């Protein structure tokens, strides 16, 4: 196996119940890379993100997926998170009654427990929250509110990137992070993602439009269609797609 692979997905097939959505996905991501996955509605983009993160709605029929050599599909969603997988949700969930602070403290300390580290002290934790908030210019007042409750669309997406900053994943999957964002919010979110980029971690950007890729520059672009990756090329592919539209893909397949 290529020692340099961070994510290695081979022949992954999955769906809901008997309905197959992913029909054999192959995808390799190396540290330091940004991959974009594009494709028309219903092609399986969000399913791929959900299956990798362990969303219990999906059933895996076959194939494999490893993160840093660890078999992802054998792990619970929480352990996938502890192994360094982060999913930025297309629709972040509102959780009334659970404050952002308690939510993040539980998440951070669960990961530390997994890694056999002592829990953070209250002051260390609050200091970290302050630092990470600055990355996406997230208002302090949101910290005392319930998770995502009453947040605007832009605040929800910024909150996702804030959580990503706190959890420092090795692989972040951003599922349609641009949807519902105005241009200013998009800039803030994209700049947050770029600030968090290192040569050790990687990002998969799932998007319908080229627009986000003006701000988060991909190294590799894949086109997902009917549950398979039908095209893989450099950043120029996104531009070509923007020009020709998805019909071009549909005609070819």
């Amino acid at each position, binding site marked *: 196996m290529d020692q340099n692979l961070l994510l290695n997905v081979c022949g992954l097939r999955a769906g809901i119940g008997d309905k197959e959505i992913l029909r054999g996905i192959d995808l390799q991501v190396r540290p330091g890379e940004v991959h974009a996955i594009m494709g028309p509605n219903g092609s399986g983009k969000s399913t791929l993100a959900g299956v990798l*993160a*362990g*969303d*219990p*709605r999906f059933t895996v029929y076959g194939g494999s997926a490893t993160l840093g050599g660890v078999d992802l599909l054998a792990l*619970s*969603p*929480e352990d*996938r*998170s*502890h192994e360094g997988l*982060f*999913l930025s*949700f297309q629709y*972040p*969930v509102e*959780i*009334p*009654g*659970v404050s952002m602070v*308690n*939510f993040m403290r*539980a*998440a*951070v300390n*669960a*990961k530390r427990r*997994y890694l056999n580290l002592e829990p953070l002290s209250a002051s260390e934790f609050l200091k970290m929250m302050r630092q990470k908030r600055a990355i996406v210019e997230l208002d302090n007042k949101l910290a005392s509110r*319930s998770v995502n409750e009453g947040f605007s669309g832009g605040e929800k997406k910024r909150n996702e990137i804030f*959580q990503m900053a706190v*959890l420092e994943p090795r692989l972040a999957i951003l599922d349609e992070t641009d949807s519902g964002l105005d241009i200013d919010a998009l800039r803030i979110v994209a700049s947050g993602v770029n600030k968090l980029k290192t040569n050790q971690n990687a990002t998969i950007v799932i998007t319908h439009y080229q627009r986000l890729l003006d701000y988060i520059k991909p190294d590799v672009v894949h086109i997902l269609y009917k549950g398979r990756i039908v095209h893989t090329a450099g950043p120029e592919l996104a531009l070509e797609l923007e020009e020709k539209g998805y019909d071009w893909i549909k005609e070819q397949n």
Partner: protein
Amino acid sequence: MDALAQYLNLYREHSDVLMANAPEALNRPRPRAYERLMSARLPRKGDEGYPALSVEEMFAPDYGVNLRRVPFGVEASEPFRCGVPNVSTLMAFVVNDSFRPTATLERNLPDGVEVMSLARAAEIYPDVVAKHYDALAGAVKLIPTDPHSTADAVMQPSAVSVLNTLLCQDGVFVRVKAGVRCDKPLQIVNISNASAPLLAVRRMLVIVEDGASCSILTCDHAASHDVDYLNCQVTEAFLGRGASLDIYDLEESSARTARHAQLYARQDEGSEFTVNGTTLVGGRTRNSYYVELCGEHARAKLAGMAIGGDEQAVENATCVIHRAPKTESDQLFKNILDDKAEGAFYGSIIVDEKADFTKAYQINRNIVASPSARMHTRPQLEIYCDEVKCSHGATVGQIDENAMFYMRQRGIPERQARMMLMQAFMADVIDTVSIPALKSRLAQLVELRLSGTRELCAACER
């Protein structure tokens, strides 16, 4: 012999002993209570308003009744470990049905605040007790006058309040004199303590005079978890003009304890009443609330929650009657039921024809966490005037799986995520508690209970 008949027999055979050990004000209503019960029966499971438990079965076993007032153990001086310690310095115990003040209670009572045995109050203030005792509980109709009215059916348990009046010998008397604001909460610890099955018939009379205020915390405990106890409890609360009363009632008894509790409140103009009833540990529990808003701008907030497991049954029934214009009521009841637990909420709002500009709201939300747990819910609104704002809502559902996955994706383990969501579900009920120390204690107790602990008090000691 049906359940009620055995108590009527008991009364017939031992009324002399019973009356010799009780004050005149409590004895006076007994003959009428006896007459009324002759033609009554206790509600059964399946009766309108009783989907989850049978009051008749609750009262059917042969419980002992302490008619001779033999003192039971648990001396008041003996520090009883309660799950809500040190919330107040104004503390008293009720052992079965006998009032036991702590040594410091009297000394710490502010001027104008009286807390004592109901029997003693009946001797010192016979007129006050005679005027208020049974004035609310005894006034409720026993037989539904309108067969279509659920409100009457909900109050059919008043047969049990009549039984309470028939047998009651003691309880708690609380009076706050006009204009007096009692800043410290009163804490009343009810303890069931006997080595053989026992029925405790107790009563609480609360009088908050014009412009006065106080908050009362009551909690139910069982000294032994291996003995059957039945607590039959009636509370009557009177709120004068501009008075304010909070009652926080917490049950953490045992799986072998049955509780039948009824609260009657009458509110004058501008008064504010809050009641929060929490069932954390119990066997069979029936709580009913009957609140009358009799003066303009009176406001009532009724909240309750139950966390039920095993074969626990918890029923909450409310009846809020708006008798005056511009009155407001708000009901919020939540349940989390696991295992084979069964819950019920029967909530009614009645807006009288004179009660224009009433605002009345009701919410009941439930999480049924296992396939064998059951929940029954039924809102009932009867509105007899035009200018009102009323709403109600009821849901029965499961833990939000989207929220579960979201939390787990962030690394929060499944069990912890579930706990956090259940805790969050109860947050707004806990928020109705206005005493900060009690609120945080209650949040902690709920967390302990959700983590599976049944011996809450023991858990506190550790």
